[in-house]
């Protein structure tokens, strides 16, 4: 009895698991549980009205082959979730009503019984190819070029006649290179009819000349593709090795870019601290929370812009910069006036007080915005990446890098070229003398702290583009920021720059070798040892007012 029960328990725990795995092609929730219809329906539009992905895909493929102008409209509607299905046909939803996709006629705007045509990644993939096929015949020059890139990225043997036809078309003369590359990609992909050896080898050479990861991917597959001639496969293998070598060389440059980009984030987050902590001697543990406030300001500005001046939505990020500077800076002045000013001369106690401030700020944000992340969008012009030689430069990282440089330059200018900067330096170097010369030290203190906090706000705007915007945002940056300032040498902006570069590039250089965590630990240990050798950081500040 006991054994039987046990066996039963064991079976319930195990047996069902492989059982469903074999019934792999599962069904959409509302669909009848029968297999996809066997007979081929009348046309593509009927296919697409199905709830089965197989049928929808077949429909999309047939639309691509059809070459009809209306097919393109249907495909674009499908991509935008504007294609509705019902009564064995599909309708395009427009702003005014429904249009029958098959006929292009207006249809009665009765939405009952209609459902959006289902999409999944496979449909999307087919959709992209089908649209490329249509555009290659109907599109503008630029659209054709994009279409060819799409065809080359996902080569399909059935596309070969289309390409051959396009090659024969004299209007495509300027696209010959792209056309040939796409053709080469198809010749080297599974399902293609074997062609003459010389043509195969030419295809390998053409793809190899393109270089890059996509070419490597294509050639690695070709190297194992049996229908291709052995010589072709061998050539493909060699081409892969050669691309690999080039990728490896470019890889060092890429790591350097990653390092510089990490450095610019570190520098941005540390720069405000270099002012509040480095110049004023306030151990400002609420620095991270001031960044968080900047990030939440970005979120608010984006919301407000979207609500009131939607035309400016793509540029809300730029609008957020001054707002975040003012909000964080104002908050900083408030903190300085209400807390910090009572603690001058007791820097280590500013640590405790500002830690208290940071807890309150965190919880305040949690109370107002809730504990979850908020979504800050990345504007279109900051998205994506571009190639620079073999380097892949992500736009947003490049923008942050440039932004860090700009903030650094502006800060240096403020410190060196403005009366405020002069006063700030005077107060730092010899407070009493400065006061005797008529500088209102209290006001300078407040403004200096405000400046540092405002820069933290700017860093928050930048960080909102690459990281979470949550009440915990500040905690992730505070330790690194302090490390940068201390490692560089307190009170020295250039030291912070050098430290950020060393930590960023060092970290990214170590990451591929020993992993992110071990790299970080190693760096921390190195910084600890470095400070033992150079107790005042890389660029210690010299001067009479500084010595203890």
């Amino acid at each position, binding site marked *: 009895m006991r054994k039987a029960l046990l066996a039963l328990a064991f079976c319930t725990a195990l047996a069902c698991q492989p059982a469903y795995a074999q019934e792999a092609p599962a069904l959409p929730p509302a669909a009848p549980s029968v297999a996809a219809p066997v007979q081929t329906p009348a046309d593509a539009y009927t296919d697409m009205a199905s709830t089965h992905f197989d049928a929808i895909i077949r429909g999309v493929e047939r639309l691509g082959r059809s070459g009809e102008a209306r097919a393109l409209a249907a495909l674009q509607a499908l991509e935008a979730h504007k294609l509705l299905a019902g009564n064995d046909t599909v309708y395009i939803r427009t702003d005014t009503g429904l249009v029958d996709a098959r006929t292009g006629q207006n249809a009665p705007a009765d939405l009952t019984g209609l459902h959006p045509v289902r999409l999944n990644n496979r449909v999307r993939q087919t959709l992209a190819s089908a649209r490329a096929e249509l555009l290659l015949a109907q599109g503008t020059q630029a659209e054709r070029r994009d279409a060819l890139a799409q065809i080359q990225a996902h080569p399909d043997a059935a596309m070969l006649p289309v390409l051959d036809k396009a090659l024969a078309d004299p209007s495509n003369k300027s696209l010959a290179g792209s056309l040939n590359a796409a053709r080469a990609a198809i010749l080297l992909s599974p399902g293609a009819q074997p062609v003459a050896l010389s043509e195969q080898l030419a295809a390998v050479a053409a793809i190899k000349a393109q270089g890059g990861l996509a070419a490597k991917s294509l050639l690695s597959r070709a190297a194992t593709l049996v229908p291709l001639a052995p010589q072709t496969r061998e050539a493909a293998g060699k081409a892969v090795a050669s691309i690999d070598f080039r990728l490896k060389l470019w890889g060092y440059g890429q790591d350097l870019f990653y390092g510089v980009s990490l450095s610019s984030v570190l520098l941005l987050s540390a720069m405000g601290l270099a002012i509040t902590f480095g110049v004023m001697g306030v151990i400002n543990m609420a620095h991270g929370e001031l960044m968080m406030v900047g990030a939440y300001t970005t979120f608010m500005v984006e919301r407000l812009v979207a609500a009131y001046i939607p035309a400016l939505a793509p540029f809300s990020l730029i609008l957020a910069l001054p707002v975040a500077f003012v909000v964080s800076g104002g908050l900083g002045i408030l903190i300085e006036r209400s807390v910090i000013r*009572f603690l001058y001369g007791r820097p*280590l106690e500013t640590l405790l007080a500002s830690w208290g401030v940071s807890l309150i700020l965190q*919880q305040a944000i949690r109370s107002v915005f809730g504990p979850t992340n908020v979504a800050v969008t990345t504007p279109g012009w900051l998205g994506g990446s571009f190639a620079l030689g073999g380097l892949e430069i992500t736009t947003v990282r490049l923008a942050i890098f440039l932004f860090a440089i700009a903030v650094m330059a502006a800060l240096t200018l403020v410190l060196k070229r403005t009366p405020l900067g002069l006063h700030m330096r005077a107060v730092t170097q010899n407070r009493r003398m400065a006061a005797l010369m008529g500088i209102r030290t209290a006001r300078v203190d407040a403004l200096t702290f405000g400046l540092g906090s405002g820069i933290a706000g700017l860093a928050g705007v930048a960080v909102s583009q690459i990281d979470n915007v949550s009440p915990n945002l500040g905690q992730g940056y505070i330790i690194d920021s302090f490390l940068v300032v201390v490692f560089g040498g307190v009170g020295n902006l250039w030291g912070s720059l050098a430290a950020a570069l060393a930590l960023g590039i060092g970290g990214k250089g170590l990451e591929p070798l020993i992993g992110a965590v071990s790299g970080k630990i190693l760096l921390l240990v190195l910084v600890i040892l470095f400070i*033992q*050798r150079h107790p005042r950081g890389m660029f210690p500040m010299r001067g009479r007012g500084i010595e203890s």
Partner: protein
Amino acid sequence: MSTDFSFRSARWTALAVVVLAVVLAFASLLPQSSALSVSPFVVTLCGKYLSYALLALAVDLVWGFAGILTLGHAAFFALGAYGMGMYLTREIGARGVYGNPDLPDFMVFLSWHRLPWYWWGSNHFAISLALMLGVPAVLAGLFGWLAFRSRVSGVYLSIITQALTYALMLAFFQNGMGFGGNNGLTGFKDVLGFDLTAPGTRATLLALTGLILGAVLMGARFLMGGRYGRLLVAVRDTESRTRFLAYRPEQIKLLVWVVSALIAALGGALYVLQIGIVNPGEFAPANSIEAVIWVAVGGRGTLTGAVIGAVLVNLGKTLFTAILPEFWLYGLGALFLATTLFLPHGVMGLLRHVPRKREEEVTPEITNPEGSNA
């Protein structure tokens, strides 16, 4: 910063701690029906507070007396805790989930087949005890020797202590380290053959923690009230002058640093015995900062203040996480602000009957960005 070298209060605090712990321990053994009975929940809680008080005392020794603001003392506490945790893990033996007599559960789970070398000997209590105190002491000795020799001070020292605990936290978070990764060590059953969940064991552990805390308090009082304590304060207040008088400030500081690490490790070991879990979260830099705040709240440089601060803040945390779960962080933040702004001498400052000369009222004119003796 003034320092009163008599520490009369420390003696009374030590006595109070011991008496309270022993009384609570006995009360917890009374039958549940008795009016004086104390629930095991309160016993564990008190054990936790007293272990934290040891950490606070350790911080007070280096911050209050030597002027070294440590932002990494939780590292020594956690190392002590891990040392004890390793021993307790080995004590589980074959009673783990997988019934493996040699390997802790988390190693079986990650398909390890052999015990890593640094776990050797952890099944013997004596070796473990030596490790749980020795490792933090050696680390502190090495770190302190390097730092004090090259005269790293003030903020620089604070930040590298923070870097130290941060690096250790990252390391212990890694599952590959063989310390249970994020989960840490837990699921303990026995210590020296006594069932950890038995009321008798709990009561004994609480009484033991109280006794150790009392003994450490008396020891610290003896050390700080004597010649060494005066030297330490001299180093704290004017290190260069002490050096010119042919003392070796680095050696003076190193001694208190290592002693303090030992006390913290002891606190960690006792903490694990009563809480039953140790994980890398204990290394978090925020924990070290919090320990500093306990001392600030209680009053630095007073020994008694450290104990009072640790107990008060943690009691408040226990209460407010239950009563005002959504708002207690405001209270905690406000407490830190209020302490630094209005209670520069902490609770102990309030208790002193005669208000002292306002020597702490430093005007903004005397800024000291390096802050070596704040």
